[in-house]
């Protein structure tokens, strides 16, 4: 009988991107050395645009200049994760699963699809039918992206993860060409349902679905400050 793995959930609350990144990097090293179990970090970021490793002319996915961004109070970060440019901000549920995919889950396709499944099942609980678009990672409602995914693997330990728009102010996405893809829009749970959706409700449903899709026992902790 297979022993289920344990997943520790840490809610970081509202935390700047760089700080959360440092926590991730420490956890990756610890996970790789087996000092900790699998961890799922859940966090909300103040306005920030992140430029991923794929963008060739990375700043060309920015539709305004860096100084205009900072005049608007939006931070800018270079990060070594997959995917191109994306935006994080208040109202967006960001998740960073730090999992060791060894020995039997060493398949990036499957990992990304599993993250998509977690999100798709979560939003279904709020009455939203979402889908995948072949060739385009992420969770979509029609032609609009509801959740973005960008992952980094370091010797099969995952970091970075997903960002689900709950009540995100979508006009910030006008500053970028999300994931370098032209002509597709973005959306949020609030926009689709036409009503306020509680962040905490989505968060708790997501944690349950994560445990179910990744077949692990969830161990929740309070906010780590």
């Amino acid at each position, binding site marked *: 009988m297979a022993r289920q793995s344990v997943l520790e959930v840490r809610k970081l609350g509202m935390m700047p991107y760089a700080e959360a990144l440092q926590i991730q990097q420490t956890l990756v090293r610890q996970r790789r050395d087996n000092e900790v179990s699998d961890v799922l970090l859940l966090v909300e970021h103040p306005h920030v645009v992140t430029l991923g490793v794929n963008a060739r*002319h990375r*700043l060309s996915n920015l539709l305004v200049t860096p100084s205009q961004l900072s005049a608007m109070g939006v931070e800018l970060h270079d990060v070594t994760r*997959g995917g191109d440019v994306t935006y994080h901000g208040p109202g967006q549920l960001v998740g960073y699963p730090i999992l060791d995919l060894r020995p039997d889950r*060493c398949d990036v396709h499957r990992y990304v699809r599993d993250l998509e499944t977690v999100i798709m099942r979560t939003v279904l609980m709020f009455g939203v039918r979402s889908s995948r678009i072949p060739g385009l990672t992420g969770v979509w409602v029609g032609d609009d992206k509801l959740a973005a995914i*960008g992952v980094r693997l370091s010797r099969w330990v995952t970091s970075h993860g997903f960002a689900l728009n709950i009540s995100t102010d979508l006009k910030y996405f006008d500053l970028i060409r999300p994931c370098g893809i032209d002509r597709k829009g973005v959306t949020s749970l609030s926009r689709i349902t036409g009503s306020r959706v509680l962040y905490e409700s989505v968060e708790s449903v997501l944690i349950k679905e994560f445990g179910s899709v990744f077949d692990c026992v969830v161990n929740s902790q309070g906010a780590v400050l």
Partner: protein
Amino acid sequence: MATNVLMPQLGESIVEGTIVRWNKKVGDRVLQEEPLFEVSTDKVDAEIPSPVAGIITKILAAEGDTVLVDTIVALIGEHEEVEASGSNDDGSPSSQMEERLLDSDGVDSGFVQPGERNQLVNQGFSPVVRRLAAEHQIDPNTISGTGTGGRVTRADVLRAAREMESVPGRVEPMTAMRSRIAERMVESRRTSAHVHTVFDVDFSRVSELRASHRSTYEEVGDKLSYLVFVAKVVVDALQEVPIVNASMDGSNIVYSADVNLGIAVALDWGLIAPVIRNAHTKTMVELSRSIGDLSNRARSKQLLPEEVVGGTFTVTNPGVFGSIFGMPIINQPQLAILCMGAVEARPAVVNGEIVAQPRSYLTLAFDHRIIDGAVADRFMSSVKEHLENFEESLL
């Protein structure tokens, strides 16, 4: 003995990966398990560790290359067996799988794709010679070569092209593009009642802003040319005076809520005006980028069919060729076209004094069947005012 470094398989159904970054270069030492390169697939960026310790002797796939799983991407040796792999002039490793091919007369004849190298050996004409000859419509077999063993060099092609042009009594039929341009020019003159109005614009403010902001744009490969400033101001003015943005359909005037701005691009073999759709919704950065992208693709014949139709207004800039002002022909079925003259330092009178200022003549050609002089001048006054008092926050 060298160890092969392979493109790993990151998933059961994954057949390839794209190399995003090499953490080491040829000649560097690497430890076992030390991150050697990064591969991207499906929005996942994976750090791949080195299988052994040693020295990188060869890198066979460059950043940006997509290779099949199990392809050898690098070699690690035990000794200092560093081989010269593709490198740029400054000694840094090439970032593309390209090599410089030197002509036999030592002149750099441009980049050759690895696959093309074999063709060179087979046909005797290098790819760059064949490309250049095709552009000038010359059969390379008719060119006498001055390279080693009678090889035709790039210089030979250019010489042959010059000779062709200076032959007296030369007769050449119009190409399809040339006939189309000829027809449209004459047709436009016959259709519209062309009237031209010229405005003299002070470019001091624009010059100042351009000087302080251009490096931010250039850092990302965008050009902040005078044309970008004019394009921005024009799309705003077109929303103030919508008749100038309208088009004719038979005897109907069709107004458009969108400004689809055509930018005239001079080509070696003709002229084309690709269209920036919804230019009125674009930021300066986006306009600059669209202008650069459309011009480049126009010159390399990579425009899409939908990019050359649907314009509502056109801007042309012969000022870059030295013209001080133009009297352009309207691009049918549009109703007007704006022409930029060279931006030059000229004397102007300010508060009774003569000062030197960068100035440019902007000409509007408009169709007087539909647009009257007062309307045209109202449009141009708005363009002039917004250029002379350009809003810095737009940059």
